[in-house]
């Protein structure tokens, strides 16, 4: 379990986080919502230990993150970055094998069992046919799965994902969400940022909203994702579409009233 408590962070004097608290435990899928520039990525990086906050604390299994060794953190919490282009044509298998670095250190070559472990997660995410392909020539969705496979090869139970849906087409988004659900059922904890409240509504166990440098709301999707909260978050007026039984389905822009 990883927990940020009252974290503060500023870039060159410009405060981004002013007392944000958020936790992630195994077995939950947490969506972090926030406007552009609200500091979602900053909060993720603080929780991963990539940025050290001048105020507040980050605890991993009850101990300060700074007291853990870097490799020990990496065996417990993995980072899945936004899909990017790699400058060199590493194969999918090579990239997934990088996930064995926290276990092996900088100098030890991956062993046969490391390779087997990498191949297992690759198979499990359904990208076995891509294992020998170059990362530079596969699609965005396939790259995202590769990066998730690398995180799983770290054997970390907590996955922190920065906008995993960005740049994926609709089908890939749904497939990825399905895979994340499967991981959560198996006991992984997933924290992801997203720009789509509908995804949070349908796909997450928990939703947190980052507004003005604080977590303004944190709880189950139905109670957090109200029209008022969305309006506060994004500054747009929306209405919530509901199914016949009353279950919340999706947000859509509020119909304009024709005053004139």
């Amino acid at each position, binding site marked *: 379990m990883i927990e940020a408590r009252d974290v503060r962070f500023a870039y060159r004097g410009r405060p981004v986080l002013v007392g944000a608290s958020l936790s992630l435990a195994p077995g939950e899928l947490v969506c972090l919502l926030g406007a552009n520039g609200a500091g979602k990525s900053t909060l993720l*990086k603080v929780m*991963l*230990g*990539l940025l050290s906050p001048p105020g507040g604390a980050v605890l991993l299994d009850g101990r300060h993150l700074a007291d853990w*060794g*870097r*490799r020990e*953190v*990496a*065996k417990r*919490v*993995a*980072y899945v*970055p936004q899909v*990017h*282009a*790699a*400058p*060199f*044509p*590493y*194969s999918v298998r*090579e*990239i997934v094998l*990088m*996930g064995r*670095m*926290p276990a092996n250190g*900088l*100098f030890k*070559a991956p062993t046969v069992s490391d390779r087997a472990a990498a191949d297992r997660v690759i198979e499990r995410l359904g990208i076995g046919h891509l294992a020998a392909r*170059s990362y*530079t*020539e596969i699609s965005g969705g396939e790259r995202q799965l590769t990066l998730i496979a690398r995180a799983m090869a*770290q054997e970390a139970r907590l996955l922190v994902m920065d906008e995993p849906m960005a740049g994926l087409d609709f089908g890939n988004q749904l497939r990825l969400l399905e895979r994340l659900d499967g991981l959560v059922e198996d006991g992984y904890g997933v924290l992801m940022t997203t720009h789509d409240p509908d995804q949070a509504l349908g796909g997450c166990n928990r939703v947190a909203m980052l507004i003005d440098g604080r977590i303004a709301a944190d709880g189950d999707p139905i109670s957090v994702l109200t029209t008022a909260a969305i309006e506060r978050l994004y500054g747009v007026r929306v209405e919530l579409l509901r199914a016949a039984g009353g279950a919340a389905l999706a947000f859509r822009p509020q119909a304009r009233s024709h005053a004139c």
Partner: protein
Amino acid sequence: MAEVAAAAAVAFVPSRRGWPRWLVGPLLAIAATVLALSVGRYPLPAWETLRFIAATLRLVDIEPDRYALLYNLIVEIRLPRVLAAILVGASLSVSGAAYQALFRNPLVSPGLLGVLAGASAGAALGIILGGNWLLVQACAFLTGLAAVGIGVGIAHLFGGGSLVMLILGGILSGALFTSLLSVVKYLADPYNQLPAIVYWLMGSLGQVNLADMGWAALPMTGGIVLLCFLGRALDALAMGDDEAQALGVPVKAVRLVTIATATLVSALTVSIAGMIGWIGLIVPHIARLLVGPGNARLLPAAASLGAAFLLFADGLARNLFATELPIGIVTELLGIPVFLLVLSRVRRGWSQ
């Protein structure tokens, strides 16, 4: 030399999977070494060189007179230069490959942070200060280190040591020392010193002696080996700082050690052999075609191919014409067609 060319051509032919491609570099380097020890003004057949090596290892007997002759030719005359070619070629290539991973850019070469510009200016200064060979070497080495120090210092003072600021710092520092080189050239006596500077900047392995190699061989070999061991860490760094750090890699330490080591060995190459361009850019690409982008294999492959490449270039420089060509010219002329060949062979693309 023809055998080397043929072997180099074979290296470009894509082969079936499972074939141990990482062997190509070391085998080429060994073949090139034997050839380089054999050719020259008094050419020896390659088997005689091999027989001499076997005799030195006390495996076969050669009559003492013949052995003394061969010893003079092979060890005293040719070996220092061959050793220098091996170490300089390996240093520049492995530094280039490490920098390409570190800066996440396949078009980067070892001079990126200003080490070559700095060392050139220093060498020129050494030449007008008296031209003593040792002074020139020391000046080249120290200003090479100073140039990178300035570049890295700028990056840390103004940009927190980010990659972009490192590159900009290197460009600034390189520009500073390039202009200092112009100043030194302008101040130099145009009849003796200026030509000496110009020739020195074209690069040559001709002035190397065993004593030079004695003090330079250890730090260069150590640096090359150290860089080779950093391959896996550099793979992680090539994916991005945050990702590498999240994989448990101490990013700043790896970057610092890589830059320091690459700077040390590159500055030493300039001290020994002057400016030798292109090799640090193209050899990593050839190595990548051969063994793939994974740095744990790429760096040793680049080191051995770089050694072979420079031995080959030096062989051409020595033997093509009656007078010796500056090796910097040969690597540049050779580098362009080789780079074109590499470009045409790059199928999988470097990036998207």
